[in-house]
């Protein structure tokens, strides 16, 4: 029984062979990979499919990769599961997500495969992974639709392209897609859990969105004032300096004691564009950043204590967190948090957990 993680810094053509060599006699039934866009994703898919012909393979492009003990660039990281860790899995691709709602038909396919209506599937037995084009702007809609149709948790990330913001890829069945999402429904043998950590505290100050363009992820006004002016005022900085606060002072929707972070992206005149949507009337806490490494260590330690044994972790880690770690020279320290645990992850263009969120690590933990 095993979950194994491997990574490769080889050229694309040699990656699958490198993985096979590292895995030895281990024969995976499910393979999940995250790869830099410096690799040819079509070629990578073809080679992985050839190397693991019996496996169900899915993955996506990244803005940086994570593997046990390391944060990497220009790499391919891979997690391999055997039948004794994932009893069964089915993977579907949703194409044209910007213009079409393919979630209901995808769920029908899951129902056909697992021979169970999605509403009757035990939420403690099944878990979903979503990998979605990070340039599609469709994450909120797709996650909302998923959440309407099922209580099974889907966790995942928006594919990246090494901060080029041009084209991202999701992959399944030996093919790479853009403008698409991959949904995988898994039945882990020993159960699973989640860890969501965002390393922010509330400043105690609030902003209420009073005029928004939800589709454009833009807030025109907070509390009846132009959004940039209100944001600068609440932080006590000049309009000119407000942009420098975006990374350390995003806003958050509070659910219980948890924040669902919405990160400012850039001013649009007097308006403010975010990396995910804000609806009219939403009351948001103005947040202030804490130490990512320390916070994540505390959260991981608590989870280890709670679960006893962790067999594997998939970390969907916001690129904004990665940029902050790079700025503070903390990437090594972050990578080392996962030492001793089979783990992979990637720097995302947004995280998916119940909805679309920012500046968060959402982790799927295999017990």
């Amino acid at each position, binding site marked *: 029984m095993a979950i194994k993680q491997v990574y490769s810094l080889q050229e694309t053509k040699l990656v699958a062979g490198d993985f096979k060599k590292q895995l030895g006699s281990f024969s995976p039934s499910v393979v999940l990979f995250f790869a830099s866009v410096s690799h040819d994703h079509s070629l990578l898919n073809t080679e992985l499919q050839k190397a693991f012909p019996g496996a169900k393979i899915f993955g996506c492009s990244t803005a940086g990769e994570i593997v046990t003990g390391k944060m990497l660039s220009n790499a391919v990281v891979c997690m391999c599961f055997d039948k004794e860790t994932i009893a069964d899995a089915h993977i579907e691709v949703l194409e044209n997500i910007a213009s079409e709602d393919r979630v209901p038909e995808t769920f029908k396919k899951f129902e056909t495969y697992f021979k169970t209506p999605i509403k009757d599937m035990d*939420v403690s037995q099944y878990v979903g992974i979503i990998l979605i084009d990070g340039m599609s702007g469709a994450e909120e809609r797709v996650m*909302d639709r998923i*959440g*309407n149709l099922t*209580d099974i*948790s889907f966790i995942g990330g928006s594919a990246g392209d090494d901060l080029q913001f041009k084209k991202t890829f999701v992959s399944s069945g030996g093919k790479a897609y853009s403008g698409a999402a991959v949904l995988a429904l898994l039945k882990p043998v020993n159960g699973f859990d989640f860890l969501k950590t965002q390393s922010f505290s509330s400043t105690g100050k609030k902003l209420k969105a009073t005029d928004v363009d939800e589709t454009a992820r833009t807030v025109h006004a907070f509390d009846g004032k132009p959004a940039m002016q209100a944001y600068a005022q609440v932080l006590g900085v000049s309009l000119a300096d407000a942009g420098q606060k975006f990374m350390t002072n995003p806003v958050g*929707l*509070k*659910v*219980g004691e*948890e924040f*669902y972070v919405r990160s400012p992206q850039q001013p649009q005149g007097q308006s403010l564009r975010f990396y995910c949507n804000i*609806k*009219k*009337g*939403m*009351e948001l806490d103005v947040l202030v950043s804490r130490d990512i490494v320390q916070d994540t260590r505390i959260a991981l330690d608590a989870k280890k204590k709670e679960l006893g044994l962790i067999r594997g972790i998939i970390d969907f880690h916001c690129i904004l967190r990665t940029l902050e770690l790079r700025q503070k020279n903390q990437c090594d320290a972050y990578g080392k948090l996962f030492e001793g645990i089979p783990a992979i992850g990637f720097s995302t263009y947004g995280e998916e957990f*119940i*909805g679309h969120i920012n500046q968060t690590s959402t982790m799927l933990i295999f017990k």
Partner: protein
Amino acid sequence: MAGQIKRLIDTIITQRAKGNTTIMYTTKAKLTLKGVNPDLFSDTSADDPETINRLKGIAAELGVTIA
């Protein structure tokens, strides 16, 4: 009149979660992400027609029947 919004929220969460505490939390989060934060409403909250209509729409999306 007051309290209708809280009653609608409670109905949605109860019907969807069927006693499962994890689903209670995720339904609460879904409502918040859809624009209605359950924590902001109590038995004395005014019956704002816009919020009530929004909640009826959300209930339909979530497959919850409102009496």
